[in-house]
């Protein structure tokens, strides 16, 4: 095997893992869109907010400390304790579930039956509101997320594959964090699919996604299911926030990963969980390979736009995405 070919394989593997990270964000979109027809622009901010909350709880930061200090003239910033990662994740999950309940109760319950564009606008408002709350609660400085996830390249894989293509090949460089993220994503997706397929709540969730009227007639409370779905999206946001936060630090630009999920959804379809995964992988691999093979010829930095061009091509030839339901309007 030539070294070039092996480098190509390395690029594909890294692309797949980057794709998993995109898929994690896209998954949250799909859950909410399927069950309620809401395109949740705030999904990226939810991931940011979850990561901020996790760091804040772990470090024993006092929420709204700047606000409290400004109003009462105090000087408190920390409780003076630290919380172990596991407990902090549970607390954050609780916060995300509370957020899910609040979003549904105060916003979307009053917008049931409205035009999709109105629901979409509401999520844009929600995104900026949540970003502001995150800032106010935890401050706007960049934080490191140290939940004990491994960092850096895997020496094990590097040693194992060194010399495959001759002496000038030093082995695959695979990021350990990416490997963990892939594992976590596989577990998460398996758990979500298992939940949807085999539990009472999962069955009710699929029922609501399919037909509201029929769901009501078999005794399903739509409000309950919508809170459940937003909670699951919050869980997905937490996982995505942890992974992205560990990779590039918890900073406010994290909310922009939502924009990376858009082309993934256009490829995979807005209503399909497998679609979100496959779409994420295609975009991850596609943009890495394109950069590796075509990039040098056209001056590089193709990763910034490749996904969107691919999505545009899909919009023209297959607007429902790879796995999306075909839209047929009866006349």
């Amino acid at each position, binding site marked *: 095997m030539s070294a070039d070919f092996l480098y190509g394989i390395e690029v594909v593997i890294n692309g797949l893992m980057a794709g998993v990270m995109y898929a994690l964000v896209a998954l949250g979109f799909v859950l909410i869109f399927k069950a309620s027809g809401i395109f949740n622009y705030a999904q990226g901010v939810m991931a940011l907010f979850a990561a901020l909350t996790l760091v804040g709880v772990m470090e024993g930061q006092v929420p709204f400390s700047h606000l409290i200090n400004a109003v009462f003239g105090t000087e408190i910033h920390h409780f003076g304790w630290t919380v172990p990662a596991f407990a902090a994740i549970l607390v954050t999950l609780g916060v995300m579930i509370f957020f899910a309940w609040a979003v549904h109760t105060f916003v979307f319950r009053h917008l049931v039956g409205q035009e999709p564009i109105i629901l979409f606008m509401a999520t844009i408002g929600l995104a900026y509101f949540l970003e502001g709350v995150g800032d106010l609660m935890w401050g706007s400085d960049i934080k490191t997320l140290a939940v004990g996830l491994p960092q850096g390249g895997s020496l094990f894989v590097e040693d194992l594959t060194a010399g495959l293509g001759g002496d000038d090949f030093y082995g695959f460089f695979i990021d350990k964090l990416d490997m963990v993220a892939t594992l976590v994503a596989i577990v998460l997706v398996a758990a979500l699919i298992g939940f949807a397929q085999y539990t009472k709540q999962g069955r009710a969730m699929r029922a609501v996604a399919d037909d509201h009227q029929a769901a009501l*007639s078999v005794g399903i409370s739509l409000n309950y299911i919508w809170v459940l779905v937003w909670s699951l999206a919050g869980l997905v946001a937490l996982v995505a926030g942890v992974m992205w936060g560990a990779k590039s630090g918890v900073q406010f630009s994290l909310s922009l990963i939502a924009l990376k999920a858009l082309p993934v959804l256009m490829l995979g379809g807005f209503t399909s969980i497998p679609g979100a995964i496959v779409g994420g992988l295609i975009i991850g691999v596609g943009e890495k390979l394109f950069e590796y093979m075509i990039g040098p010829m056209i001056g590089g930095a193709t990763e910034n736009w490749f996904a969107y061009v691919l999505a545009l091509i899909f919009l023209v030839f297959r607007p429902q995405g790879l796995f999306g339901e075909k839209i047929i309007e009866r006349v």
Partner: protein
Amino acid sequence: MKDTVDSYVTDDGRTIGGVMMDMRGITLRFGGVEAIKDISFDIREGEIRAIIGPNGAGKSSMLNVISGFYHPQEGEVWFRGEKRPPMKPYQVARQGIARTFQNIALFEGMSVLDNIMTGRLTHMKSGMLAQALWMGKAEREETENREAVERIIDFLEIQAIRKTPVSRLPYGLKKRVELARALAAEPKLLLLDEPMAGMNVEEKEDMSRYILDVNDEFGTTVALIEHDMGVVMDISDRVVVMDYGRKIGDGTPSEVRNNQDVIDAYLGVAHD
């Protein structure tokens, strides 16, 4: 005889009990349009009660009032001796009232079996955590519910299509699956909105037989809307006739058939 609250035995040997559902002075308006005008009638335990009338008479609206999809501006709904507060449809379903829809509302993306299993949701009690972790009680419950569903699948003779996605089924079978889903809830009261609409003669006969069997074997009270007069007169114990939102007749099929208002509504009145 049938105006008394006491139970009585029909000619074919079924026992009809006291009043189960009592609609008192129901008026339903949509904006300025009165879909239902001050209608009262009751449904008794164990009977097959039909609501008939020309198109636009307000029959479906009445069924939607019973199942909680519409809320009347005036009137009271009494169920099993208690006045019912305004309820959401899912709360009505949990009280033991199941229904089918005129235009079939099935979960198109799910298999027949999954669709019917959703009918069991009101019977599942174990909590979300137990469900998610699939622990003892939840597993037992799932098995019990599967058995109940299998009995209904046998009863309605749809074994062959258990695993088929609903979207691939022909119309007649969809209607039957929808009935199966409603039956899976083991309802006290079963509401059927035009269960035979769009069916051929053979399918209508099958459906009539199923409705009679459900009523006979499970003792389920049935209220149905139907256009096919022959079928209605054959299978129902009592019939309410509606026209332009008003009740114009109420009684046994033979009483209704000889009611002049009913004849006029169906055949038109000669204006001379």
